[in-house]
């Protein structure tokens, strides 16, 4: 899957935000790896796209960043969720669940065409 369209970019933002909320402070590589793991490798991202999400989330004030040292002693930027981000995450999550529920119901409609 190649998540570069608008819709999927939005959902990537949501996944990144959730990852940071659940797993605490992380750098970009860690976030990308986690998303791949959790999706059981169904989602194979071009990992660079994570950075587009991170920039957007940071510009909107939902996450903040700080420079630190990574596990292999390299300089890396670490991201963490903000209070505003936590609030927004709750809203977006509930929206997503409603949305997917509705779509699911529609898709499960029995076929009622006359034969």
């Amino acid at each position, binding site marked *: 899957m190649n998540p570069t369209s608008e819709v999927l970019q939005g959902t990537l933002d949501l996944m990144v935000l959730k990852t940071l909320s659940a797993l605490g402070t992380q750098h970009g590589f860690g976030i990308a*790896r986690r998303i791949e793991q959790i999706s059981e490798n169904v989602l194979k991202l071009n*990992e*660079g796209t994570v*950075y587009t999400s991170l920039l957007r989330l940071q510009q*909107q004030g939902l996450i903040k960043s700080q420079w630190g040292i990574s596990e292999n002693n*390299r300089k890396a*930027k670490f991201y963490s969720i903000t209070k505003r981000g936590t609030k927004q995450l709750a809203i977006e999550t509930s929206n997503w669940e409603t949305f997917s529920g509705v779509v699911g119901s529609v898709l499960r409609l029995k076929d009622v065409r006359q034969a």
Partner: protein
Amino acid sequence: MTRVILQLWSRFRGLFGEESSNREFRDEIETHIALLTETYVRQGMSKSDAMRAAQRQFGNAALLEQRQREARALLWPSTIVQDVRYAFRILAKSRATTVISIVSLALGIGVNTTIFTLAKAALFDELSVRHPEQLRLLAYAQDERSVLREGTWGDFYTDPQGRTILASFSWPVYQELLRRDNSLGELFAFVDLTQFEHLSATIDGHAEVVTAELVSGNFFRSLGVGTVLGRTIDDADDSAGSDAAVAVISDSFWQRKFSRSPFVVGKTIVVNLVPITIIGVAPEGFSGASRVHNPQDLFIPLSAQPLVFPRKASSLLSDPKTWWIQIMGRMAPGTSEAQARASLAVSLNQAVRSTMDVPPGRTIPPLLLLPGGRGWNYASQQLEHPMPLLLGLAGLVLLLACVNVANLLLARSSSRSREISIRLAVGAGRARVVRQLLTESLCLSALGGSAGFLLGYLSRNVLPRLFSSSWEPAVLHARFDWQVFAFTLLVAVLSGLGFGAVPAWEATRNSMNAGLKDGGTTMTRHRHGLPGKVLATAQVALCMLLLVSAGLFVRTLSNLNALDPGFNKKGLLLFAIEPSAKRYPVLKNTEVLHQIEERVRSLPGVESVTLSKEALLGQSGSNSDFISEGEPSLAGKERIEFNSVGQDFFQTMGIPVLYGRAFNSSDTSTSTRVAVINRALAQMKFGDKNPIASFFRMNPEGERLEIIGVCADTKYAWIREQEPPTFYLLYTQQEEPIRSMTFEVRTKGDPKGFSKEIRKTIEAVDKDLPLIDVRTQEEQVDADLASERSCAIVTSGFGVLALMLASVGVYGVVSAGVSRRVNEIGVRMALGARADQVLRMVLGEAVGLAVAGIVVGLSAALLLIRFLVDMLFGLRPADPLTLLCSGLLLSLVAVMAAWGPAQRAARIQPVRALRHE
């Protein structure tokens, strides 16, 4: 919502510290890829495999960096500077194209700037008063049964429905309206005295002509205009019986005559031999209420009329029968115009009935409300008439210039296809490349626009001059201000986007591969150079439109010029004399005029001299009733034009007398009052009967006049008007006092050379009598045609520009075509085609292009010509001669333009052509 704001704010902050952010991100990417590599190594890949896999997994790092850069900061400022610098480099490289483009744009934009400056003055400039859009001028439509048939003085005009519209009221009616009706607030009154005569003022001993407006006491108050020095005229100054001979002067007069001296209040100037005290100075830009440009010099209360502008024995202010004053009011916001008009119409009715007798069978004219924000002059002179046409044509010239530039850029874009393909391949989005190309176009249009703006500035006074007569101040003032700049800017930007869009789109449509191939020639896709040919055809079509319009106006002008006015207009010098009432009471002014007549006649080189109240083709006239003997009522009879002339009038003007005799020395102030009528009048009133020795009156109580002769028909006030029925009186037999007479002097040789001698002669008679409006009869006729002549000159200029631009366009397209087809022509010649065959082939294609353009242009012209109909004269709108000549001229120019490239094609040497790949 807050998120969006936060985002914008972050992006704004991202403008700063760009370099360090870029470096940091690069570090981040490196770290990420390094970590990924390590992961793969741990999974068992070799180091080099792992690195490659990691980079692949990461995605396009360079592209990501670019996207991040763009997302981090507000896009525009950083990249725009880059774009502009690059644009200038590119423009400098292809100098020829750039120069031609800039010149084309300068001409196109410059033309629009000039016309806009003029149109703005005619269409938009308003009186410099408080809320001019609220002002309304009272007016009415005149007809034969109107009770106001006689005694109306002042300007008038004919509206599109053919009605004669006047705005002159009597002072008693004004007083009644003021009392009875306030639907338009407090009505105020004014009169532009320059309609009637020239005032002479003596300031510090020097005499000169000044302009003045008589105003009511509430004039300044109602207009919301104060003074910068002293006080305004108020109700006390304008009360009956006040002999307040005071004046407020305009800023321009203050500047001109007193050099803005602060001590001007209280000074006395002598106007028409009456001492007047200056009480205040009006603000800059205030020009009165009759006109927007050319401010009046003086504003004098109406109560001073008997002193300054005496006309009859008693004051005009108490005369209910003389209608000469303009009235304006202010529309309060929220009030209905229809209601105000209806209410005023009723009030006018009552006012007229209470001030004068309305005999049965006579009607009171219906009241109209005209917009007053541009003064009375604006409506009556119909300055705005040719403007929309000129603006439209100027727009066409600009379109032509833009198409020209588009074509040039298109031709160049094929040579840039390689550069653009590389940029697309490296990852620039289509939008980005298009933006770059548009930036180049905007730079071009900015340069062209600046040059055009300069051109407009330098020529700003040329057009207003064309529209006015050569001896009077220009009727329009073209103010070159920020609005003109804004217009030019808008036009330049729109042009840039307009002509830039086509080549930009065309350039990025190339497939990347084709551009990158060495010497890439795209063989298929679409027909070669089609866009270029379409554009060139469009240029030819536009040129045809402009040529046709120019041709029509030039022919109209020449038709009008060729009209026989009915008299000999060559070799006549005209000037006006206005003997002041004070120095020359009634009898004495005919004496002084007679004296001048005699003295000028005796000058060497003067063949004959005469004078007349109305200069022929002077755009003004006098009319009266014509009551033949035995004709009782005037019901439904139209008024007849007349002129009060000197003894040698018919001889001097070269008007043949067909029957009877002209005036001679036996006609004196004491002999029978006589008149000469023209053939049209004889036909109208007497049919086939002999009118000689019949009598008529000019009004029921007046003396009767004997008809002594019938003369040929002549034009009267306007050359477009057919020769009206006219009669001529002898001025020495007139009972009305004469305020202004125009002398006509027939001279041997150039009339203008005599003005000095004549001036000296008149000074000998009376040194305080200035010579007014010196001009030749031919210049007078030209003044009547000022509007048509200006249109003809301007449209011809457009036509020439259009030809130049179109020829450049045709040359460019044919030349590009030849360059593109060098191989093909080489092959043809190698196979046996001769040079002249190739020449004919190229020229043939050029002619084909031209013909296509001419046909399109012709169709468009036939469709649009109907809008010109009322400006033309003496020809059908679809005039075959004009259409034919335009088409031929354009074809000729197209062939000439294509000649060079065609010759180049014919001289191609097959061997070299085939080698050139």
